[in-house]
């Protein structure tokens, strides 16, 4: 198992490096420039040159990449062009805030998905299956930012039951296990969980339906096992496949949804990225994308390992 983990870790290094090159290049290929958003359009050239020098934007792109990478290796992502703060000091709180939503969204999405998918798979071809499958397709298809706006209109504006935006009523971003924080979480979590719920439902359904038709299930039935025990075997066999999908979904959620976080003014990585994109805040963009990519790589690694534990055949 250790050699398997090491092997996967070695694979992760070129992936992370590739991500840094791609994200660095993409930022430069896009139109616009970081100074357009922070300086008046007719700022004198001498002043623009000074700002460029201060942020190292006057150097050749390869040199900029190398300087950035060498610092990034020691967790120094530079300073935000817009705010002047260290990127890490902006990124870590945002990451924490997105994590709060991601965990909530994943918990709701995975539980709903597992239950609905399990029922749909078990009752394959019957009305329950058709109903849950339709729900899953709806979940995957509905634009979640639209759903977010609809939820706000219904629950915040019309019914005045839940807050429309932010992490707290006062605008603070501190999180505690308080009723106020949970009330602010409800709508973004629900909006965020719809897509993973749909995807997990479909995955679980197809895995369960397929497994229930396999010969070993017939064998278990013929041995006289109860349906509950048979389902336990089926669930264990379905787990690696479902786990892989859940891992990917968790990765997406951890990345923070730009649209959901913008609609709810939730100060996570999605909102951070959104602002950085519009402002061409290159250090923030690069630092955030790299961090999210690394999290994604690590999550995939964790999923691979978990799959290997559940199904030793995968290691071979």
């Amino acid at each position, binding site marked *: 198992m250790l050699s398997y983990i090491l092997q996967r870790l070695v694979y992760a290094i070129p992936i992370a490096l590739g991500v840094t090159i791609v994200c660095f290049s993409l930022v430069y290929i896009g139109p*616009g420039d970081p100074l*357009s958003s*922070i300086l008046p359009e*007719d700022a004198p050239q001498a002043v623009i040159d000074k700002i460029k020098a201060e942020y190292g934007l006057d150097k050749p792109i390869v040199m900029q990449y190398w300087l950035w990478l060498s610092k990034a290796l020691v967790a120094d992502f530079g300073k935000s062009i817009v705010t*002047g*703060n260290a990127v890490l000091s902006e990124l870590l709180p945002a990451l924490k805030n997105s994590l709060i939503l991601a965990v909530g969204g994943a918990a709701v999405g995975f539980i709903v998905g597992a239950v609905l998918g399990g029922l749909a798979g078990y009752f394959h071809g019957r009305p329950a299956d058709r109903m849950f499958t339709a729900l899953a397709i709806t979940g995957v298809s509905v634009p979640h930012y639209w759903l977010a706006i609809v939820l706000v209109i219904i629950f*915040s504006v019309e019914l005045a039951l839940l807050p429309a*935006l932010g992490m707290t009523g006062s605008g603070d971003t501190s999180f505690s296990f308080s009723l106020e924080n949970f009330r602010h979480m409800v709508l973004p979590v629900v909006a965020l969980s719809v897509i993973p719920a749909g995807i997990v439902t479909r995955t679980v359904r197809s895995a369960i339906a397929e497994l229930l038709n396999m010969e070993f299930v017939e064998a278990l039935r013929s041995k006289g096992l109860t349906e509950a025990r048979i389902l336990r075997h089926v669930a264990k066999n379905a787990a690696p496949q479902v786990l892989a999908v859940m891992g990917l979904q968790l990765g997406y959620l951890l990345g923070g949804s730009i649209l959901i976080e913008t609609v709810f003014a939730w*100060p996570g990585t999605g909102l951070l990225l959104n602002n950085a994109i519009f402002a061409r805040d290159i250090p923030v963009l690069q630092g955030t994308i790299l961090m999210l990519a690394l999290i994604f790589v690590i999550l995939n690694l964790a999923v691979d390992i978990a799959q290997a534990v559940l199904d030793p055949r995968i290691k071979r």
Partner: protein
Amino acid sequence: MRRIKSTRAINATGKGRASIGQLLAVAGVTAGLTTSAVAESVLRVGMTAADIPVNIGQPDQGFEGFRFMGYMLYDALVLWDLSKDKESAKLVPGLAESWEIDPKNDKRWIFKLRKGVTFHDGSPFTADDVVWNFAKVKDDKAPQYEAKQAALVAVRIPALSAVNKIDDYTVEILTSKPSAYVPYQVSFWFMSSQEHWQKTKSWAEFAKSPSGTGPWKFVSQTQRAKVEMVPNKAYWNKARIPKVDRVILRPIPEASARVAALLSGQVDFIEAPPPDSIDRLKSAGMKIITNAYPHNWAVTLSRIPGSPWNDIRVRKAANLCIDREGLNKLLGGLSIPAKGHMPPGDAWFGKPTFEIGYKPDEARKLMTEAGFTAAKPLPIKWAISTSGSGQMQPLPMFEFVQANLNECHFKLEAEVMEWNALTAFSRKPADDKEAVAKGVDGIIVSRALQDPYSAFERVFHSARISPAGSNWGKLKLPVYDELLAKASLTFDKELQDEVLRKVHETAVDNAEWVWVTHDVNPRALSPKVEGFVQAKSWFQDLTPITLKK
């Protein structure tokens, strides 16, 4: 905002028996808490900005940054009178009580400073602070020099070359050439506390507790979430000491989120509600406040050799072919149809002879004279952003204008860009290779027309061709250079206004741009917000606001 904490009654006879002293103490504390909680009124504002503007003096985020960080925490030597909604905001004394041009030297201004003003950290404001703040943005050898601050203000104070102390409350401001615009220019230059900066000699540290002389004092801020301020009770202008106990400014860039926040009671005041939300807001009892202000939504035309816009018949035809009243309906009534570069009724509007309006037959006639017909329309292409500061509803508005012009022998296409890309694009003139390659002959970038430089010089003077200004189209006409030079040398305000009216009349009569509309700066306020006066300005004053209980 009312927050009353309930307290559990103490059972004086039972297990929780308390002495009379304890009871009195608890009662006192409770009364204090209740009184202060009841007394505290908090105004919560939803800004359109995506983040908190830079707070150390010169704000970023355009004029919204000036509005909510600049003029709230800081003062300039000269301020804007934002107390009236019937007339254009005018310059008024700020940290300078008076100013005058030296009668013997037209490159020297004398500013008499206000006495008894203190920064929020308690240090006194004197002439040394003015000199120090000038070095902060102009002297790159000075320890307090801050490159981004310099870049943010450089374009606002182009005439200033030096600032010298004469005595503790008098400074001289020298200019590189004679300029009557100095009072306007210094209104954009904010004074930060020298003494406060000296404690750490770091702008990053200064940003944690910024100190100016403005009517509001900084309390705290959380990036991308909120900034809190409280009244500066020692403010030198007693009439402008804020009436609420606290203001919380929240960046909410998504328009529907701002509306939802107001409707659900999370904020009391929002900037720029979208037109399609107005009826809903009104039906919920919200107040919609609008007013004309110096803004325009217009097309800067390419005037490079070979551009079709060099033909005045084509320019006039485009101006006569837009149904601005129809556009106003599309915008829910939240616009003022353009009659020129400045909004109608502005002090610089004058009396142009070319009357801009919707006259499609006349427009088609002009186009036919210019050699274009329905069968052979003139192909044109304008760069437009998907959103952006002051751009209103750019794409629906463009499509409306496009449909109009295509009825008048034009064939208008869009080069759609994201806002940042468009601002970068507009920094290079019309004959730049990118503009030529894309075939763009006009750009739609909304303009702030607050002062003579922004309104006219920056866009019509031949020395202000992008990137030295915003003359993207490379308009080069001696009449503007001469009139603008005269205006900048006319130190009498009335006479200067007269020259600027002439500039405006000439620009409209020449149909230099295609003017479409003016924004009305809509804001939506909760019914409990009272006392707000929307000035005819990009800047606004939150100090008179009170909150109804």
